[in-house]
């Protein structure tokens, strides 16, 4: 386990998580959430959980982001907080 790669990805996960919550535009939040899921998938792949990483990549980063974008498309992008 190359620990510095894991450290970089961990920091990226936390940054994407906080950004997905604080960014004002919902479409941006959906895309950042997709990035968060993908970073999570990398973290798990490094930790050896290949099946879970595969599922998270296809289900979490893939379909969840599409469903989020579809829902934001059906509602509104503006948000106050």
């Amino acid at each position, binding site marked *: 386990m190359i620990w510095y790669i894991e450290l970089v990805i961990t920091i990226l996960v936390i940054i994407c998580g906080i950004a997905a919550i604080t960014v004002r535009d919902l479409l941006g939040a959906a895309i950042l959430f997709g990035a968060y899921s993908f970073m999570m998938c990398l973290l798990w792949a490094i930790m050896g959980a*290949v*099946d879970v*990483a*595969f*599922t998270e990549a*296809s*289900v979490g980063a*893939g*379909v969840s982001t*599409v*469903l989020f*974008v*579809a*829902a934001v*498309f*059906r509602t509104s992008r503006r948000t106050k907080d």
Partner: protein
Amino acid sequence: MKIIGFIIVLLCGGLLAYATSDFPYWGDPASPASMHVSAYYIENAVADTSVPNIVTAVLADYRGYDTMFETAVIFSAAIACFFLLRIFTPESSQSKLYRHIPTGITLRIAPGGKLPEKSDTFERIDSSWVPHDLIIKTACRLFIPFIQIFGLYVIAHGHHSPGGGFQGGVILGASIILFAVSNDLRSTISRMGEKITAFLCSAGVFIYAGTGALCILLGANFLDYGALASLMGVDPVSARSHGILIVEIGVGITVMAVMVSLYYILSSGGQLDEGL
């Protein structure tokens, strides 16, 4: 409200950090989590089910009952979205957009008015349409068959490499969603209709629970694939491996159909008319 939320979250985090002091060291092989049950799985998975990927063996055979209910969870999500959002009476409040193909002019038809659907000079386009983009459409048409082949490979090869029913089903579903995003929703629904998706949803889970019920009819307990040996004419261990494969195919079909139906309903807000 912000401060109360912050305090509760800090309290929760502090409680969890307080418990971490008693955790076993990270990754040591003698920690109780990896001694008791999982040691048996690692040592006996190949001997019991002749499936080298231990995760697939545990997922579909030792704890196959969990996975059956997990497929039932994803099935009930599709039913829930259908039940909540689906609207059958065509809401004609929005105006419809048509494009006159020879000249490329777009016409806005007031609500209520309707052009013949199947006419060859006019084609219906979404109200939030993007200019006619040939590159994306043809590129996606090229990709989709290969994505689907890869999806089938992932389902079938779940025994030996990471993958299995869920991942393969999602990839197959994603290929159809890619077609729906590149073209428009109506052409996708004309190719894979709502009835077919609903039938595939319940067919996949029916395969899973039906295989389990078949094992009861053959005298063993529920989901005990060893009983299928008499049916398949092979020794019980490889009968378990084939049982796992049948179950994974059932899961793949259900997950594909559920992802497609979720996308249909969420992107069109229930009317299955104009999608993303």
